[in-house]
């Protein structure tokens, strides 16, 4: 249960600084702008939240690295990492605790978009089951982005580098099913591997979710993304111990 100690401190850290408030304000504002202007929420005349959720991958692409960049870089730079890593806590507790705090924080920001749910229920008669599934899917996807960001932040003590790396790797994952990424591997990878790369796409999995088809497979996909990248975070931290 030691990860809870870390998680509590981290979560408190978000709200003790302006980070939490700035992030939440920008997240809510942008998700509104995207939904109503780019997503034509009203013009579509449909009682669902597809225009709202379909922008989440792009929103997360540059907002999630802003949360995750500080996870390890900041501690390495300020020296508190030395304090943290010499406490009698296992590395897994620290990695998981930090991730969970960031994930819960992202969840809070996501939950605060509830007025749009109320709006769509006021205007029409949406399938709330789909909406709940979509919220859950969006949160799982945010976890995937955060886990990638955690690993990138463990690599460097520069938050800027962590931000850029996380944005870049996340973009590869978002676009894995699209020509942007597939063209890169087409020439030299066997077809089965290309299919595998394509199946890693956040967008493919999330689009299914936001249309209300939240299958066990998508759930497992995002879970394994989280597990793999947190594992990678732990390995990077271990390598850094070797100096």
């Amino acid at each position, binding site marked *: 249960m*030691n990860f809870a*100690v*870390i998680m*509590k*401190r981290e979560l*408190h*850290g978000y709200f*003790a*600084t302006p980070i939490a408030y700035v992030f939440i304000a920008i997240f809510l504002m942008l998700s509104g702008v995207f939904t109503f202007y780019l997503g034509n929420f009203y013009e579509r005349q449909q009682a669902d939240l597809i225009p709202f959720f379909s922008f989440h991958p792009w929103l997360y692409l540059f907002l999630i690295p802003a949360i995750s960049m500080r996870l390890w870089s900041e501690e390495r730079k*300020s*020296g*508190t990492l*030395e*304090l943290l*890593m*010499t*406490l*009698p*806590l*296992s590395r897994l507790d620290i990695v998981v605790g930090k991730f969970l705090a960031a994930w819960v924080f992202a969840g809070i920001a996501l939950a605060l978009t509830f007025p749009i749910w109320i709006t769509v229920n006021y205007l029409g008669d949406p399938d709330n089951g789909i909406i709940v599934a979509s919220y859950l899917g969006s949160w799982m996807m945010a976890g995937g982005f955060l886990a990638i960001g955690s690993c990138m932040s463990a690599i460097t003590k520069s938050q800027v580098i962590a931000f850029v790396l996380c944005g870049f790797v996340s973009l590869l994952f978002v676009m894995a099913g699209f020509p942007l990424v597939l063209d890169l591997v087409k020439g030299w990878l066997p077809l089965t591997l290309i299919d595998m790369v394509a199946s890693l796409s956040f967008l493919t999995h999330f689009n299914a979710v936001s249309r209300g088809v939240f299958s066990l497979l998508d759930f497992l996909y995002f879970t394994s993304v989280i597990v793999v990248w947190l594992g990678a975070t732990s390995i990077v931290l271990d390598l850094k*111990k*070797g*100096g």
Partner: protein
Amino acid sequence: MIEVSHLTKYYGDVAALEDLTFKLVPGEILGFLGPNGAGKSTAMKMLTGFLRPSSGEVRIWGSNMWQDSLAAQRHIGYLPEGAPAYEEMTPLGFLQFIADARGLTGVERANRLEQTITVMSLQEVLGQRIETLSKGFKRRVGLAQAILHDPDVLILDEPTDGLDPNQKHQVRKMIKGLSADKIVIVSTHNLEEVTAVCNRAMVLAKGRVVSDGTPESLMAMSPYHGAVTLKSSSASLAEIAEVVGSITGVKEAVPIAGGITIFPENIDNTLFTKVLEVSLAKGWKVDSLYVESGRLDDVFRSLTEGESQ
């Protein structure tokens, strides 16, 4: 008990620390002395499990720092260089976090928090953010988190760096006050600190131990150790030099400002009496007369500079 054997750390091809071996038992206060870059912090980072050594091992009460790090780390309280702390937290919140991370609960947790806050005199700043505190208070917050769980081993990397003389005095008093059944390792490039708090001093230079002994034995390495300095305003220095230079057992008499320093051939504690008798016999007006205990900065320089060339 701490057993360190053949601890070595390479960064690429550069040796940051080579073949550090020592053993400490409760009651010992070891001072790591050395210029910047001598390997003091690297040694401490490996003793606490933050860095993995290239070779060698560290055992704390039998627990290997790399095979059983949590058991080893439970014995240790550590103040890293610069006393890092979560700046957005208050000292109280920070210490509560450390208490939880150290697994303290219930009455013990409350007692330890209260005692530590009292010992480090943190009451007045408990509710302020750490980032707003003065350097002295920040350092005390760092020390507080290190002693919070009443550790068997206290490892302090430059604990008094940047403190004013009063604060330095306080910190040293604190270290001496807790050391009876503890092991303490402090690093410093401050020489007076070693004589003030340590009962063992290890001088590091370029990643190697160049001297290991008591602070007194370190002082004894000074050419000034056992010399006698006489200051007089009545007699001429030339006369004094001539007279004391002819005392049996005197190797050399070197004039200094307002007096003369007399070096014996062998340190046998008789020089002071001889010089005193001569002064009285000659009727000199003696301003001061004292035995030099040794000058640590000379020893420090000769040990560490000789090594770096």
